[in-house]
């Protein structure tokens, strides 16, 4: 048969690596400057800490070593809160996406509540749940909940009418309709919702810790280091925050992108 054509993705890997290297120039120069310049200065100032001291602090400094326990607490809190929020967001998104009645009943309130700036929840949550773990978990869950719910709903709403008609014509029973049409059809959007949810939940985790400030955690670690004027520890905390944000995002993509292979090459 002559019309059998398989389109193969054309890639330009060399250009892509060149771009990555050019993008790395600025950060590398800045890091090098940070590593070298403070040693060349004759005066020591607590605001100017060389890079090597910052990186060494979690291993040699007594206060610095506390960051490991804080990190563990923060990660636990982050994943717990995210899981709560994402599950609730998925559930609400599916409910309003699948049922017109639920959409009309719930969506106006949802959209109103969504307008509240995230950090404005903290006084409310601490009033309800106290300054302990409950408030922080609720805050993290809330920060993941909105983007996940919103994108899940959107993904279901925008499934092509043509596909819905096919499901009707083929008389797909509800279970099959959910598994073969609704979930995979909404998946790209759900995927985006979860990704945004991870980012906002990470912000929520650290921000919540920083603002509520009781117990252990990276946010609290940074707040205390700042209080003691330990710039090295503050910087250490910031570096770790960025690193974890990056790793979580990359890990999520690695884990879930194979599920979207059917989309083929994007034009």
């Amino acid at each position, binding site marked *: 048969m002559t019309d059998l054509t398989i389109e193969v993705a054309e890639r330009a890997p060399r250009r892509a690596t060149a771009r990555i290297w050019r993008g790395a120039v600025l950060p590398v120069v800045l890091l090098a400057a940070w590593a070298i310049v403070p040693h060349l200065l004759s005066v020591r100032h607590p605001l100017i800490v060389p890079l090597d001291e910052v990186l060494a602090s979690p291993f040699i400094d007594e206060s610095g070593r506390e960051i490991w326990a804080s990190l563990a607490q923060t990660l636990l809190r982050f994943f717990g809160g995210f899981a709560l929020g994402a599950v609730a967001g998925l559930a609400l998104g599916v409910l309003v996406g699948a049922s017109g009645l639920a959409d009309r009943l719930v969506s106006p309130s949802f959209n109103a509540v969504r307008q509240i700036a995230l950090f404005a929840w903290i006084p409310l949550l601490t009033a309800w749940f106290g300054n302990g773990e409950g408030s922080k978990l609720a805050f993290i869950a809330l920060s993941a909940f909105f983007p996940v719910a919103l994108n899940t709903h959107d993904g279901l709403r925008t499934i092509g009418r043509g596909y819905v008609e096919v499901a009707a014509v*083929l008389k797909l029973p509800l279970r099959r309709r959910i598994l073969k049409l609704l979930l995979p059809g909404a998946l790209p959007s759900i995927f985006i919702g979860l990704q945004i949810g991870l980012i906002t939940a990470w912000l929520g985790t650290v921000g919540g810790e920083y603002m509520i400030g009781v117990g252990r955690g990276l946010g609290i670690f940074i707040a205390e280091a700042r209080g003691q004027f330990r710039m090295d520890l503050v910087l250490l905390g910031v570096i770790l925050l960025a690193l974890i944000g990056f790793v979580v995002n990359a890990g999520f993509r690695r884990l879930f992108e194979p599920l979207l292979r059917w989309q083929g090459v994007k034009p």
Partner: protein
Amino acid sequence: MSLATEAYSARGLHIRGVGKSYRIEGSPLPVLQNVHLDIGPGEFVSIVGASGCGKSTLLRLIIGLDADYEGEIFLGGDRVAGPGRERGVIFQDHRLFPWLTIEDNIALGLEGLEATEVRARIAENIELVGLQGFEKAYPHQLSGGMAQRAAIARALAMKPEILVLDEPLGALDSLTRVRLQNELFRIWRKSRMTMVMVTHDVEEAVYLSDKVAVMEPRPGRIKATIPVRLGHPRLRASAEFVDLREQVYEALQY
């Protein structure tokens, strides 16, 4: 291959006084008026007409996607109410689910069958439309013509009694189109299924059909039904063919 040996049980389709109107700003706008059409068991009937003559609307009523109409549509002795597995549908766009492989798309409607039966039907219909080797491909990896073949296989896998085709080849280039016309003919011959096809292409209608129904618009009605009493294979350049084609064109003038 079972298609060659067991003929599909076919029932005829009977459209009796069907009318349909949309409400535009409160006043009714008739799109179909008093449509009568009889399609015998195993017959291939085409419906042609200008855009907006209601032919696709009529097809939606036959498929059962729209239940809000006057008159009656019967499949054999049963009144049509909602979609049914005995009516297979081919749309103009293939509408394969992009997240399922070709074989999973074909298996989509085969709920409640034994796994061996599902596998057999996939293999049988993949072979029928000539897509061997593409079972595990995703729709975006196929050309338009191949995707439409896969859509045909998906509809046939349900073993419908009647195949409803809504401009099935309208989105394809002319070479692929002619090739798929021959495939449709071959499938129809083999299965003796009842087929009803909406098309813009008069030549395609005369080439494939036992009968061509010509519709006129505002409101959509059947203006003429022209029987095509030609044997197969049909030669598009033969005098009888050209003559019939002109008859249909003439009926399309208003």
